[in-house]
């Protein structure tokens, strides 16, 4: 057994044992935390080994009746296993004290967490359609159980859970049918068989397989218009689970797409990738626009996940476009950019969700309009969120800056390199990426500035306190990852390049300075960061020497002479977003309402004014509500089957899997 296989086996074994231990041991939080860390670390090891070329294949015929299960680990899978493992490490440490809360201490909830990690680790390791689908479904099942963990305390959790259950199963169904069609043509469900049969597929069948897989994977990655569940489920889950879902689970949608699109189907015609690119661009802009309007800290982070996955899909789509026109250098560059963004997003989204969890833990609220003034009482959490916000907003020296720079380089060099389709797509993609970057800056300035700086806007925020050490340590791990990715992305680039081989050639080299190979372009995030630090320090010194008044005087805020400022005079998150809301009025279509109550008999003496605002998800309203109405009508008829229990719906999903596997076995 090699390192990759051992690591993976350890990850699975530790995860399962931890789950079992959680059911019996009294100090569950600590055991689950440590177990998750170890399981994650083992997975990381396995993933890294796989990326450096160590591989294995293991067949477990006994595990699944009829078709058996096949596992392997290549560089592409290894990357996603490693990312999942890394997120699990940070989440595990964080969870040691975070899960002491009454709702999260429950035996079942505790036991599910390591199992969720195990399922996520196994998805990229699956080497047959059957194994992939089973792991995929297990992942969905465990995550659903975690999402509804707090349903006793908060009723909205149940609704989020229902949305998630339905959407994730529709997505699953789509992937399932797509893969089954593929398998039916190939005659065998192992990935190698699928790979071999791909070139014999008719364009129509290949297209059908691709589109079905795309729909399913896009829904997992929270891509518009299949994103509706994401801003519901991610925020309602406990924060460390949110981190796992938003930083690790959504990635597997990207993994699935890359695996099926590039690896199994071996690339495809231009329209596939244009579709991916457009979906990505729309998701990026729509996701960040919703996030910019949002005043719920965790919902904002969830919507930003849609944005980031959108950016990744822009990269994947561009890679596909270049690959289909035979430009493997640019395809490699675009896919490296996309995968680097996946890794970077995993790091900063973990950090942001953990920090948001820390805030929720300390204040009990996620509403930005109620927060503020956390800096003096929660210095570490504030610093962590600040770093995460910098990383997420594509500003130097931040994590996303490097990957978005690579993405833009790919798009720029792609314009002269490809056909008319690209000539139209590239500028639009650049504009979408640019608009996304701009709005992301506004969004995270809002989240950090309103949520953490200035003075508290509510009693809850005023009474906040710093979180326990393990939670801070969890954030610390993610923060270090962010910093490393921001300043020295060369650490992870070789692994990512290995993974990107499925689409193209290695495209980036250099340790201090990232140099593009094949096309001109160079960037040194380290030097940039250093230059900034040197400049700040030098300036501070010069000002100290030149200024004659050395002592800073503390003074009350300038209140125009009108008296002390109250927290009500602080800018709110709603207000911060209002100009953007006005600008994008046609897109977001907010519902505004101002009620003015006048004194009787005098129109000019106002008694009370009330303002109401709601920014509904427009796509959701247009697309889902008619469907939901239809489903509701069907549901009325099918009441016999539906009892309203989430678990029952899950059961149906699982039966469907088994049924289809049966079908598969018969056709074989």
């Amino acid at each position, binding site marked *: 057994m090699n390192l990759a296989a051992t690591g993976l086996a350890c990850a699975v074994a530790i995860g399962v044992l931890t789950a079992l231990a959680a059911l019996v041991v009294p100090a569950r939080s600590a055991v689950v935390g440590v177990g998750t860390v170890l399981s994650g670390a083992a997975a990381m090891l396995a993933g890294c080994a796989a990326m450096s070329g160590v591989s294995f294949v293991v067949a477990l015929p006994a595990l699944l009746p009829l078709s058996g299960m096949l596992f392997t680990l290549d560089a592409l899978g290894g990357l996603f296993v490693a990312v999942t493992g890394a997120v699990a490490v940070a989440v595990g440490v964080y969870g040691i004290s975070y899960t002491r809360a009454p709702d999260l201490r429950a035996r079942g909830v505790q036991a599910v967490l390591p199992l969720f990690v195990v399922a996520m680790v196994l998805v990229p390791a699956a080497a047959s359609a059957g194994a992939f689908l089973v792991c995929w479904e297990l992942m969905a099942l465990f995550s659903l159980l975690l999402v509804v963990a707090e349903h006793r305390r908060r009723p909205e959790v149940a609704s989020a859970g229902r949305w998630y259950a339905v959407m994730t199963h529709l997505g699953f169904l789509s992937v399932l049918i797509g893969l089954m069609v593929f398998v039916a043509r190939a005659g065998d469900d192992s990935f190698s068989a699928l790979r071999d049969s791909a070139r014999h597929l008719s364009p129509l069948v290949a297209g059908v397989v691709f589109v079905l897989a795309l729909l399913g994977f896009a829904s997992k990655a929270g891509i518009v218009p299949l994103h509706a569940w994401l801003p519901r489920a991610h925020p309602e889950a406990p924060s460390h689970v949110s981190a796992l879902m938003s930083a690790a689970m959504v990635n597997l949608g990207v993994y699935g797409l890359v695996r099926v699109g590039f690896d199994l189907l071996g690339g495809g015609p231009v329209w596939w990738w244009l579709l991916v690119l457009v979906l990505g661009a729309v998701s990026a802009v729509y996701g960040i626009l919703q996030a910019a309007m949002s005043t719920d800290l965790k919902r904002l982070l969830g919507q930003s996940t849609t944005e980031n996955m959108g950016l990744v899909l822009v990269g994947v789509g561009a890679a596909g476009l270049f690959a289909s026109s035979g430009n493997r250098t640019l395809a490699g560059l675009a896919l490296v950019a996309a995968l680097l963004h996946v890794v970077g997003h995993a790091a900063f989204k973990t950090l942001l969700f953990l920090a948001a969890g820390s805030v929720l833990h300390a204040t009990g609220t996620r509403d930005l309009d109620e927060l503020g003034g956390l800096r003096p009482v929660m210095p570490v959490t504030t610093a962590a969120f600040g770093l995460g916000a910098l990383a997420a907003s594509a500003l130097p020296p931040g994590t996303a800056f490097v990957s978005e720079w690579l993405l833009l380089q790919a798009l720029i060099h792609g314009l002269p390199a490809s056909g008319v389709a690209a000539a139209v797509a590239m500028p639009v993609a650049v504009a979408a990426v640019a608009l996304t970057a701009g709005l992301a800056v506004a969004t995270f300035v809002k989240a950090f500035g309103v949520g953490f700086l200035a003075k508290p806007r509510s009693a809850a925020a005023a009474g906040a306190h710093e979180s326990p050490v393990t939670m801070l340590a969890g954030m610390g791990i993610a923060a270090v990852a962010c910093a490393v990715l921001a300043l020295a992305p060369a650490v992870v680039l070789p692994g990512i390049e290995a993974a990107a081989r499925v689409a193209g050639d290695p495209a980036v080299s250099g340790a201090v300075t990232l140099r593009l190979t094949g096309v001109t372009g160079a960037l040194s995030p380290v030097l940039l960061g250093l230059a900034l630090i040197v400049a700040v320090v030098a300036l501070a010194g010069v000002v100290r020497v030149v200024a004659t008044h050395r002592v800073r005087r503390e003074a009350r805020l300038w*209140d125009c002479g009108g008296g002390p400022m109250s927290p009500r005079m602080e800018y709110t998150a709603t207000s911060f977003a209002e100009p953007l809301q*006005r600008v994008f009025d046609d897109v977001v279509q907010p519902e505004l309402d101002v009620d003015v109550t006048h*004194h009787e008999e005098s129109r000019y003496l106002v008694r009370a004014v*009330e303002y109401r605002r709601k920014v509904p998800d427009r796509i959701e309203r247009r697309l889902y509500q008619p469907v939901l109405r239809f489903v509701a009508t069907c549901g009325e008829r099918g009441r016999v089957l539906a009892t309203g229990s989430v678990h029952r719906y899950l059961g149906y999903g699982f039966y469907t899997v088994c049924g289809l596997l049966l079908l598969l076995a018969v056709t074989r």
Partner: protein
Amino acid sequence: MITTITAGELPEHATSLLEKGFRLALAAGHDDAGPDAGGLRAVYLFIAAAPDRRVELHVPLDRDHPEVPSLARLSFPAGRFEREMRDLFGIVPTDHPLPQRLVRHFHWPQGWYPMLAAAGEPPQFGDVDGPYPFRTVEGPGVYEIPVGPVHAGMIGPGHFRFSVVGETILNLKARLWFVHRGLEKLFQGRRPEAAIELAERVSGDTTVGHTLAFCLAVEDAHQVTVPPAAQRIRAILLELERLYNHITDIGALCNDVAYGVLNAQAQRVREQLLRINDRVTGHRLLRGAIHPGGARVAALPGPAELAAIGTDVGELVGLALSNTVVTDRFTGTAVLTAAQATDLGTVGVVARASGLTIDARHDHPFMSAQFPRPEHTRTDGDVLSRFLVRAEEMATSIAMITSLADMVGDRLTATAPITSGGGRSGVGIVEGWRGMITHRIETAPDGTLTRVKIVDPSFFNWPALPVALADTIVPDFPLTNKSFNLSYAGNDL
């Protein structure tokens, strides 16, 4: 016409007057303490135009329980006059819909009514940072912008509290009376000629308007007829004051949309006008020219220089309106509809820009010579209307000054003697550059003033500002405020 009535009869009388087309020009408390030791008295002055009619309702009140039925539901301005009376005299308007303090801020001692004759030295004042009763706008994300009393620009002291979401103004509360000095009480006990210096400083930019209204009130009380030459000189001064203030506002409106070059040009013209003022009266703000019984100037403005200024102003206004961004910012901004302008009792430029035909020069003339009412090209109640009304009034004023100066000729001084004796009251109404100014005085038998009530047009127009701001965004507030350009000093007294 003065009618003395009981408090109970007040609403009925007021209703019938308002129905006949009268408007409330003034309401004030009076303390009749003195040798004959009377009680308190509330005086309501109703006026109507064409023909000029003035009706005073006097309501004697019990000093121990001074109460009047509130007229706030009949007339919006009445409600504010009543709150002022309550704050200064302790006269309680019963059943008032908004019985909060108006003049006296939170830290002024309770139960101390400064205008009462027996008020005495003020007791200890409280902490300035007390609660300020003010409507909170409910809703997620609503915040408040507190501005003032010390503003970023060169603006008088007032405190504005905006309830805002982002850039949208949901509600505005203006808190005034920061410059309340107690001016009306300073008049008391002086002889009219010794009170001129106060009248000239009610609102520094409206020297002529207030001084003239005061003199007209004094002359009304003493039933003095002023020589026509003095009337014309007074009218010239009134229009000169209008000119320099309107061009200031025209420039300032351009400046508020960052069209600074036109502001510089307007300020150049304004300086020319201030220098003409200096030549005419010996004072750049036209002080020292009007006195009870007459007026006196050192020179009169020449027709040529006025015509040149008229052309200059016309050019500047044309330049402002030919800039599409300027017209875009002016047009449709902060609309005050004619109905709102009427209901709130607005006067002057603001009222005329909303389409009301109200102008004391024609409704309550002090001069026999008459000029036609100017027609205004735009009366939609927005910033552009208020800008254009000012511009068009400047043209009218220049024409008036030219023809009046011609009539006056070289007779630069004219005075009728003020006969002493008194114990009477008088009212003076003048169309100052902001709008209608009303002064009402009462004199003791020895001719000294016992009560002077001053109503600046700003008192009527301030409440219109928040109303016009509905549906306006925050960055358009300064422009709106400038287009009203209301006086703090004149309002707060």
